[in-house]
């Protein structure tokens, strides 16, 4: 399944792009409306893009009344990203949702965190709704596998891996932060190795389905996340530069699978964990390394 990463697409301004996905994931919704962080909110660096949007959203009440009914018209499954500043806030928002999959945003780098642990928030949300719950985790956790195990025990139905990395960019002339809030979340190709490591680690310790995301720019990137253990893949920053990315990545994913002898890319889920059979590698070793 191909999705968008939360906060990387507005289905109401780009419905055709949303329909080119298998499901649409909303921008994070919080109990109260939020204006978000002060601009500048984005900065491109040589390594990737930093954003500091700060969960701008209309609040759950307006979302349920004005936004969700329009999203339902798209005709594709809707995932609602839920945020909050305490376990009770997450649970309250979850209790008001219907006929969607929930993704708990437990890892926004651009707002203050809830005091409770990820597992406590998942448990409170689990008690509030029978809907499927995915836990979106940060690649900056000291031990993401341990948190994955904990949220599985607390009742999560799946994992979304990963959110952005908290980073900083300075203006080279003024030597001051380029973003209004100072730090922001790094996304783009630089995030992919981190996403792969997180998916790889969590696949080993839980039986939960994993949505892999982070720096996917093309079909081979998506296939790598699938091989690490993702049974779905989400597109993020690539959507900013190419609204047709879902169509292209889907096509390239099948070509990439075909190139390694797989008739269906989704049969490759987790194969990175299998021992190599032939000892062959498709990656060229750099010529300057001795033997």
């Amino acid at each position, binding site marked *: 399944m191909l999705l968008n990463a939360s906060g990387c*697409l507005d289905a109401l301004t780009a419905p055709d792009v949303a329909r080119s996905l298998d499901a649409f994931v909303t921008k994070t919704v919080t109990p109260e409306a939020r204006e*978000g962080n002060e601009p500048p*909110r*984005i*900065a491109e660096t040589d390594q990737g893009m930093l954003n500091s949007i700060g969960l701008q959203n209309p609040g759950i009440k307006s979302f349920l009344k004005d936004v969700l009914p329009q999203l339902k018209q798209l005709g594709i499954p809707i995932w609602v990203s839920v945020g909050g500043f305490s376990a009770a806030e997450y649970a309250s928002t979850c209790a008001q949702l219907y006929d969607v999959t929930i993704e708990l945003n437990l890892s926004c780098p651009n707002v203050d965190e809830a005091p409770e642990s990820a597992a406590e928030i998942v448990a409170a949300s689990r008690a509030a709704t029978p809907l499927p719950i995915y836990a979106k985790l940060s690649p900056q956790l000291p031990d993401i596998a341990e948190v994955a195990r904990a949220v599985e025990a607390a009742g999560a139905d799946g994992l979304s891996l990963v959110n952005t990395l908290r980073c900083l960019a300075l203006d080279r002339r003024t030597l001051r932060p380029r973003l209004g809030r100072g730090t922001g979340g790094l996304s783009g190709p630089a995030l992919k190795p981190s996403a792969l490591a997180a998916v790889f680690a969590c696949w080993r310790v839980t039986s939960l389905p994993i949505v892999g995301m982070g720096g996917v720019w093309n079909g081979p990137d998506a296939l790598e996340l699938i091989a690490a253990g993702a049974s779905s893949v989400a597109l993020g*920053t690539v959507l900013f*530069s190419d*609204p*047709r990315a879902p169509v292209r990545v889907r096509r390239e994913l099948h070509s990439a699978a075909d190139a390694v002898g797989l008739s269906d890319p989704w049969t490759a889920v987790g194969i990175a964990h299998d021992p190599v059979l032939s000892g062959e590698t498709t990656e060229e070793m750099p010529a300057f390394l001795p033997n």
Partner: protein
Amino acid sequence: MFNRERRRVVGSEQVGPYTLVRVDRGRLEPGIPGQFFMLEAPGRLLPRPMSLCLAPPGELAFLLEPIGPGTRALAELEPGDELCVLGPLGNGFRLDVERPLLVGGGIGIAPFPYLSAALGIPPAVLGFRSDRHAEAAALVSNAEVVVEPTLVTEVLRPGHDVLACGPEPMLEAVAALAPSAQLAWEAPMACGYGACYGCVVEIDGRYKRLCVEGPVLAA
């Protein structure tokens, strides 16, 4: 679906310190003056928003100032190079005005050649920071040109429907003198089509996306 095409560069010319990049139009529409396109900047992660400067037959032309890695990469494009172009995007100028006056500053004159043609070559007041920058005024007919320290607001005449584009302090000063002006704003943008929420500006006390609500806004 938004129109995004891979287009070929057919020309790149220096205009003072600016660069006018011309691309083969393909099936892209030029849109309404003041609308913008996202241009793929070679070697960069994100495309760059550029308003359309000229729409010669079969071409789209963009005036840019090479000041950062993205605009420098675009300025270095040569005929035959290719880049992806997405657009037109956003809301352009309202053209139903009786006595138009174009007011521009620096690279903010970029949309004016196309806008001027659409409005029947109305008068324009253009401000630049140096004589070299002012060479770009040659792109806009019927223009009065001022160079710093003289500011465009010092030569504004009352009784016009002002359509303005330029740096923020200029737009704010123009809005104070011409409360019914149409102002084309600028903000860093990642996507140009409402996806990223990166380009917000404060409108009526709320942060709104410039790419969706603008870039042309009422004063």
